[in-house]
């Protein structure tokens, strides 16, 4: 049973001149309970937008154009005594609740989503270092979050829980009475994680959780996230541009480019059985600490602008393998396993599968072989293909 199921989600940012930035286009993925799912991609690929849209935290000009965000939860007013949705709610076509107990977050209003935030889905923001309020004690900020989202809790209980949470993430409980400036960078990050865990969410969204941190502290924070996951069974949706970090912590991931998911699947499949030209190019372009004498090759060109993009594959202009077909329409997601020429028409719907958005799925072996050659990426003549 999945915890979160995102179907064909498209998010736009309105621009003054009437056009729209297609920050995310027909994105589908799912997160299982207790797993770490990664959205990886370069800046401007839409990964942060996507994560924010799940809990309606988009900027004012951003909106969900279409798509569904099914999440395993029931709003209190729609729940029976077991926390399951009432039959009358499921039957009501106006209420976005499915028989399996999932609610479509995309259809909730701003008041309803507030009941989901923090209690069910908590966010560790991108600049967690600056997410703490400098004029309130750190402990009080956690208490506030608890009281705000769980009105039935008493202040004393909330204080005890705040201290426990801090202790759980490796901060002396007495430091609850300190202010943010008295914390080091790593401690602030831990405190923000403690705050996100305050109401026992089922899903943690961690947006670049370690980007501003030094490498030794980053290492400890990643360990802490893993430990929390093991202990509380919380699912984590991580957003990062850092492929090495993602490779280390994610069970499954989606590689995004230009607002689209280019490839998704289990982490080891993405790295060991790469099935998309963009991922192949990405793998060529970053150095690893373990190997000597690497030859890095960059992907030619630059990422596309997402303002009213055309129909073709978003990556085609930088892709050495682009063919005629790629100009007509962005490819659907194909299942890598079942791909053959006949299998082309069958789009993968199973979230666990290894899928890729590439028409040349039946020539994967050849693409992989060619992608290793530097000349594949530098040869100018291919661009006209």
């Amino acid at each position, binding site marked *: 049973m999945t915890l979160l199921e995102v179907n064909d989600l498209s998010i736009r940012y309105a621009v003054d001149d009437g056009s729209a930035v297609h920050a995310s286009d027909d994105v589908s993925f799912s997160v299982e309970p207790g797993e770490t799912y990664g959205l990886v991609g*370069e*800046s401007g690929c839409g990964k942060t937008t996507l994560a924010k849209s799940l809990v309606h935290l988009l900027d004012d000009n951003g909106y969900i154009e279409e798509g569904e965000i099914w999440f395993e939860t029931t709003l209190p007013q729609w729940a029976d005594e077991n926390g399951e949705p009432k039959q009358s709610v499921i039957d009501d076509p106006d209420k976005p609740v499915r028989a399996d107990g999932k609610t479509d977050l995309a259809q909730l209003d701003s008041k309803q989503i507030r009941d989901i935030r923090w209690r069910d889905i908590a966010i560790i923001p991108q600049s967690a270092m600056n997410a703490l309020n400098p004029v309130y004690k750190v402990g009080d900020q956690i208490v506030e979050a608890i009281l705000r989202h769980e009105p039935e809790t008493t202040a004393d209980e909330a204080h005890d829980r705040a201290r426990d949470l801090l*202790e*759980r993430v*490796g901060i*002396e409980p*007495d430091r609850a009475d300190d202010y943010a400036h008295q914390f*080091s*960078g*790593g*401690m602030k990050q831990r405190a923000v994680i403690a705050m996100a865990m305050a109401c026992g969410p089922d899903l943690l969204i961690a947006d670049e959780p370690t980007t501003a941190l*030094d*490498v*030794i*502290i*980053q*290492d*400890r924070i*990643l*360990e802490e996230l893993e*430990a929390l996951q093991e202990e509380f069974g919380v699912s984590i949706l991580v957003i990062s*541009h*850092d*492929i*090495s*970090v993602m*490779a*280390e912590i994610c069970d499954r991931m989606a590689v995004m480019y230009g607002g689209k998911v280019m490839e998704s699947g289990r982490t080891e499949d993405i*790295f060991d059985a790469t099935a998309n030209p963009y991922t192949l*190019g*990405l793998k*060529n*372009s*970053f*150095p*690893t*600490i*373990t*190997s*000597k004498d*690497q030859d*890095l*090759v*960059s*992907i*030619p060109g*630059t*990422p596309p602008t997402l303002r009213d993009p055309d129909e073709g594959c978003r990556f085609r202009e*930088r892709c050495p393998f682009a063919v005629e077909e790629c100009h007509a329409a962005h490819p659907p997601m194909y299942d890598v396993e079942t791909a053959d020429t006949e299998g082309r028409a069958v789009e993968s719907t199973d979230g666990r599968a290894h899928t890729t958005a590439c028409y040349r799925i039946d020539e994967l072996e050849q693409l992989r072989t060619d992608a290793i050659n530097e000349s594949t990426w530098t040869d100018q003549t291919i661009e006209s293909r």
Partner: protein
Amino acid sequence: MDRSDDREPLVEIDGLQKLFDQSQGIVDTVLGREPQPVRAVDGVSLDIYPGDTVGIAGESGCGKTTLGKLLVKLYEPTEGTIRFDGDDVTDMTREDERKFRKRVQMIFQDPFESLNPRMTVYDTVSEPLKINEMVDGYDERRSRVKQVLEDVGLGPAEVYLDAFPDELSGGERQRVAIARALVVDPDFVVCDEPVSMLDVSIRAGVLNLMQDLQDEYDLTYLFISHDLSLIRYMCDRAGIMYLGNMVEQGPTDDVIDDPKHPYTEALFDAVPDVELGDNRRRANATGEVPSPRNPPSGCQYHPRCAHIIPPEDWDGSQEAFRRAFQFKLKVRRGDLDAGTASGDGDPVESLVEQGLTLDVPEEYRSEREIETGGRRTNASSLDLPGDARTALDEAAEALLDGDPDAAVAALDGVVTTPCASREPRPFLSGTREVACHRYEDENGNTGAIGGSNGGINAAPTED
């Protein structure tokens, strides 16, 4: 790159120090407080040979950018000397300085900030030529600019000459910044995180370009980066900085494959890697980088170090000493007091067990620590000498009485490391220079540590 002995270094840095913020405010003057400067670079010595790429790595605040800026004379050093091609750059005539500025260039981190948005690419790249009065006449200048732009991969140059920075992508901007540095045909270029603002897919292009240009323009690079994988890719030699000090330097492959300094070891263990998978070790270091305004005494890494050296007369294990030393640090920081002695049982025992815990990744923790989530460890299972155990108990009792000074006093005689008393001198160990007491000791360099028991546990082991 092989190092023949007859080559003269291009840049010789000796005992370089840069302190910031030495002035006092009026309140400090009235109260008679001593100024407490930030010790950004604190006694760095380094030779850079022509044609080499020397990497400087370290965490934020370690002084790597300050070092780079000192080398291009954007800062004046507080102490120490920098010799460029034999001449002392801190003491130059105006004419010599003009020549120096032509031979030494810098590429900055953020191409979105370092280019003037009101200047076209041509203006930006030709400005150094004008300042240095290098080329006569517009036509010659223009052809020189075009040449350099094509060299940095911005071709055909006509397309770019009249463009403004906001019309260019990040990768193109950084190439313009590189062109601006190279147009005067320098000998030495300081590159401060040149690709950290660029997307992964275009980074490699800029890095490879820099490597190609090194051959073409006969350049020597100082490559500053926090990203150790990049240092490995780019550099022949690498220096690791910690709190303004160079803790280790040597050929990059040696430094990374077999780090000698405990900090270098922790740093490389902490780097996530696609290829290592589950085999990766985590970094065995406690705590975080302290403030450069008030750095620890002696070896500045000692409070975090996994290999901290016990005193000569310590007859327990090194691990026991490391834990006892963490106890002392916690008392000093005020992290341990009567209030924290929670749980049932003897409060003294409980405080000792709490104080002896290590804030390290799980794989380095004791069983009891794993069970208790890092809150407790077994004092009895540690190989603690009797007098140390007594001192810990005394300290815990003093803490329960609310007297932390007495607690520190109880520990001072027993739990004292030679690492804190004296700064380690850089020592040549194999191919590198390491500033760590363990290596001084091994080679009998100084008599300060020695000793049979402490030495065995502290001695570096090759495994």
